[in-house]
């Protein structure tokens, strides 16, 4: 749930939006010309949104990334893609609904689209396990990626998970092995891969869909090795330090672009992706098409070579006695 400063702003924004809507209805009913008044109110609304979304703190971005009205994978698939056919199951144990995937078209071209799927309400969340996959979810994802490879189509993944589920069944069925295998197999896949963090990029559970030629992030999404809450509890020994941990972890899209991990930050409509699903989906489609166009031109050996170099270059170290690399 969004809270703090964002929630305050959102309340004000919602009030103003209602005011404009009421005015429009009133004008229509009585045949009045209120264009000027509406323009003034809309300007005020834009200023309010700008003020709210300029200089967001790390924890505010975390809240936006987890916003309950944010578009999820299937919302993007419905808007940015066409001709989607969902494919289910890992062919070994069960169909994990915390991950969805299937064939779809992106401006005509066939891609395999795979993503974490959160639930919109409690009932759906029980089915989707709040977007926290079990091993069978990752194995389904890998099956679909191999299918894409078999028929020579690119893979698009949408990342949005608090993390891989930490439970007894998940451990019994090899959560670690399922994630590890995806990392290795994605690194070797002979078709282009693009991942987009659309909301929460929660650690290994996110990375298991993230070993890709390009890594994109929505402006208000996050990607982190651990949740700010978890990090605060371990390193600061108190959950109260959540805001500090969020800041220290450098988990926002601009931070990650500065660290060289993310290839492109996709700007969100003013007011955040949750305020304009269509606008966000449009931005997603445009970015994906651009990157796929570039990647599909590369011969497969060069594509893989570049992918390996990309990940091999990640990290920062120094040689003892010398300056940082």
């Amino acid at each position: 749930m969004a809270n703090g400063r964002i929630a305050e702003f959102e309340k004000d924004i919602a009030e103003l939006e209602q005011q404009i809507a009421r005015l429009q209805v009133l004008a229509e009913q009585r045949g009045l010309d209120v264009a000027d008044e509406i323009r003034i109110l809309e300007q005020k609304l834009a200023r309010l949104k700008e003020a709210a979304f300029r200089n967001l703190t790390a924890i505010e971005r975390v809240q936006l990334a987890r916003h309950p009205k944010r578009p999820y994978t299937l919302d993007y698939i419905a808007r940015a893609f066409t001709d989607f056919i969902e494919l289910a199951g890992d062919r070994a144990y069960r169909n994990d609904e915390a991950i969805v995937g299937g064939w779809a078209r992106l401006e005509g071209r066939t891609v395999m689209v795979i993503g974490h799927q959160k639930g919109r309400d409690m009932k759906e969340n029980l089915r989707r396990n709040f977007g926290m996959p079990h091993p069978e979810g990752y194995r389904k994802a890998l099956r679909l990626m191999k299918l894409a490879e078999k028929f020579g189509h690119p893979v698009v993944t949408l990342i949005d998970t608090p993390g891989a589920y930490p439970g007894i069944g998940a451990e019994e069925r090899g959560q670690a092995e399922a994630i590890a295998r995806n990392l290795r197999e994605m690194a070797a896949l002979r078709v282009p891969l693009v991942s987009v963090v659309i909301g929460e990029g929660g650690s290994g559970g996110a990375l298991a869909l993230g070993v890709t030629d390009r890594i994109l992030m929505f402006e208000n999404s996050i990607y982190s090795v651990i949740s700010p809450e978890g990090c605060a509890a371990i390193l600061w020994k108190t959950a109260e330090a959540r805001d500090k941990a969020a800041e220290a972890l450098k988990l926002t899209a601009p931070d990650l672009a500065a660290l060289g991990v993310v290839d492109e930050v996709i700007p969100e409509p003013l007011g955040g992706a949750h305020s304009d699903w269509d606008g966000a989906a449009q931005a997603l489609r445009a970015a994906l098409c651009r990157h796929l166009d570039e990647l599909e031109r590369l011969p497969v050996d060069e594509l893989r070579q570049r992918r390996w170099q990309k990940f091999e270059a990640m990290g920062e170290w120094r040689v003892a006695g010398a300056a940082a690399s």
Partner: protein
Amino acid sequence: MSWFRKPERKLKAEEKRELPADVFEKCPRCGEILYRARLEQNLNVCPSCGFHLRLSAGGYVALLLDEGTFEERDGDLRSGDPLKFTDLKPYPQRLEAAERRPGSFGDAVVTGTGRLEGIGVCLAVMDFEFIGGSMGSVVGEKIARIGLVALERRQPLIVVSASGGARMQEGILSLMQMAKTSAVLARLHEARIPYISVLTNPTTGGVTASYAMLGDVNLAEPGALIGFAGPRVIEQTIKQALPEGFQRSEFLLEHGMVDAIVDRRELKRTIARLLRHMLGLPEAVAAGRTVDTAQAVGAGGEGAAPAGKDRAAD
């Protein structure tokens, strides 16, 4: 009795307590008081109950490689502070403290080349004493580099893991080391170069969810904690106590996640036998074996297949 003597006795007891700390160690499982020199000779395996106490990273190098063959690589790599991370302490201070500890290899892994029963191998051993064996950029880089050496030389890779997971102080860069190391393993896999992963107590988090689980053969030491999520996190999530033996090596063997549980005293010989199979080499001659297993005196497993033996013991 006579309470006049009490201060005297106290003094004596203190003297006694100081001495044993260096000379004796108590087995955490059976409680046996062990003579430290004898314990070390037995590779830190309790001679009484077989419990595997922690062995240092340097200890594994000595255990696995033929004497005098180890050549360390990248021993001069040190962590940077890419995030300028400060929690209760600045990250560089934590690094300095870890590095000052005797036996440190500069970060949480030591890598190099050497011979194992005469077979040229590339080896990485994680050091749990260095910030909980956590994987940051240096761990990922050293493992990736030794993997590339294995690829170039077409020599088998052996990684001995012991880790609490990713190093939070390096944020996303630590997470990306999982991808980096797995990408190198993908290349080894395609080149059909053997990779043996040895999981020791404890191996959890990002290390388990990357190279530790990707062995052509995964070997676990007895009783090691191995998992993705730590037991505390799972307990907090599901709000119930975990079953006895959960996430221990024996549990992983039962659930098909490791190939075998191998007693530390049999580890070198087992790896050598596996490598000879995978590399298409003939079985070792008896004479060679005698020399190589000389250090595993007291193992009591002569001639027996270690994996089969351990399975039977379950």
